């Protein structure tokens, strides 16, 4: 790789499968299996390590990964380490004459959020949102805001399906300002708030992701003078799968949820109400027929009974009549003789 005369910036982003190196400080061996992707701050590779497969992110420049590493370190101190991928090693890689920072983390295997909901159906979207909101709640309680929350930073692992985030580069301490964001998921872009790191910032992004699962692609803000809240509200109404969650989504877009747990509770209630309603109507339709049938057959029965009653009544009358007739004939015959 030393022989390559590519642009400096690309050296760390163009490592070929099979490339091996030892970390500069910790001397851990790595071998590249394949490239997984690249982000604003660096490239991610699947690598073979002493302990198995892992993901390695190599930074574009000297300081680019430092914030992300700091965040991951904080996360690994949190009990249970549920907030992000586990951080295994932080080191430098020397390529040619240049040194680039890298870190090694748990490899999350799965598919992107949008691919998943496209393949499995949109009814999965609210479920994944509930999972995400639970994670956000824990993150917020630890004093952090995710910041650059978007489908590209979310992956669905499993089965069982579980949404996980992996790029924590935009994660910011509560109270500071958001530095990394993507316009579509940023309330500042929509003119619906500032970029202060607070729970409602992440909840806005969550709502936008939810909306995107129905549309499958991003759209631009309205040109001209249309109020962006009205516009988004219209966008939500246009998509049938979103309608049960419209109230919740608007509440989040307005920044009215103060904590992820409240939004989570509401989404769960909406899912429940929906499935209850559905199973209820099902029950009604399912039970309606037999009931009707029973009713119909019941009345038939009764009718039959009535017929039977009628006929037996008639028989009785005929019998008594003929009896009276015969006995009167016998009487007259007796008189006659």
């Amino acid at each position, binding site marked *: 790789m030393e022989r390559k005369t590519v642009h400096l910036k690309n050296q760390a982003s163009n490592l070929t499968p099979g490339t091996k190196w030892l970390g500069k*400080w910790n001397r851990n061996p790595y071998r590249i299996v394949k490239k997984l992707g690249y982000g604003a701050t660096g490239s991610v590779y699947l690598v073979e390590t002493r302990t198995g497969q892992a993901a390695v992110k190599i930074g574009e420049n*000297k*300081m680019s990964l*430092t*914030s992300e*590493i*700091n965040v991951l*370190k904080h996360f690994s101190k949190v009990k249970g380490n549920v907030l992000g991928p586990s951080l295994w090693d*932080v*080191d*430098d890689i020397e390529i040619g004459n240049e*040194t680039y*920072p890298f870190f090694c983390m748990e490899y999350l295997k799965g598919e992107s959020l949008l691919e998943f909901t496209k393949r499995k159906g949109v009814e999965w979207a609210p479920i994944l949102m509930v999972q995400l909101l639970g994670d956000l709640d824990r993150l917020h309680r630890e004093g952090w805001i995710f910041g650059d929350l978007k489908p590209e930073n979310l992956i669905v692992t499993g089965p069982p399906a579980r949404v996980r985030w992996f790029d924590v580069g935009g994660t910011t301490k509560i*109270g*500071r*300002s*958001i*530095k990394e*964001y993507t*316009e579509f998921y940023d309330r*500042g*872009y929509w003119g619906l708030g*500032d*970029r*202060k*790191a607070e729970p409602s910032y992440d909840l806005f992004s969550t709502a936008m992701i939810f909306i995107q699962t129905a549309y499958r692609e991003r759209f631009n803000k309205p040109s001209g003078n249309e109020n962006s809240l009205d516009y988004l509200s219209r966008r939500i109404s246009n998509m049938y799968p979103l309608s049960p969650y419209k109230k919740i989504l608007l509440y989040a877009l307005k920044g009215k949820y103060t904590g992820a747990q409240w939004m989570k509770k509401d989404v769960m209630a909406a899912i429940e109400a929906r499935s209850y309603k559905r199973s209820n109507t099902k029950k009604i339709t399912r039970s309606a027929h037999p009931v009707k049938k029973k009713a119909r057959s019941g009345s038939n029965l009764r009718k039959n009974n009535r017929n039977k009653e009628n006929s037996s009544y008639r028989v009785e009358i005929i019998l008594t009549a003929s009896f009276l007739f015969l006995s009167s004939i016998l009487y007259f015959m007796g008189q006659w003789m």
Partner: protein
Amino acid sequence: MSGGKIRQILLLTDGCSNQGEDPAAVAAFAKEKGITVNVIGILEHGSAREHGMKEVEDISMAGGGVSQVVYANQLSQTVQMVTRQAMTQTLHGVVHNELRHILGEEQEMEDLPPDKRGEVMEVVDELGENISLEVLILVDTSASMKAKLPMVQEALSDLSISLNSRTGGNHFSLFLFPGKRKEVEKVLDWTPKINSLTGTFNRLTTGGVTPTGPALKAALYHFEKRQDRRSLIEYGEEDGPFEESGF
């Protein structure tokens, strides 16, 4: 950075200067005065024309700042990113100098083990959040910029949102060039928020010349005037003297 402040000039332009002194020279002088010059080059949509974009890089290099060439629709995110980056860069510079004092001349940031680097970054983040920032925005309003001005306006209010989400104080000032009768015109004096821009760009008459150098010089002078006035009026009080509006 001077007196716990970061001072920046943000230049938005779409091409070559054609009047007055070399803007890169003025930028180099600004750097010496502790003012960073950042430049955003705005491309014509549909054309891959990099013509005139060399100057963009030259000015920012001379001014110790950051440059970026983008299409008008990417402006919002770029403006805030460039400002942030330049801020972090400045702060890193300051912290590096301090470290060099402590660790010795030859010590560079990357010579530190990753752990220590993380700690330095925390310090820089903390500073970037709390430090006061003064940004003088210089917008090229020559004829070819006319169609892009609404985007510029949007990007500037977006920048205001971003920076005002920080804990530290902000002051913005806006200059346009060429001005109506002069080479450069001040449309907004130091103010903590840029939401009073609506309309400013609409009543503009765009001119033909691009006096980037003189405009930078005027910006520099405006910074200096502020500095002088402060040192004359009061000394100890932080951030106080800018409560009164206008000159």
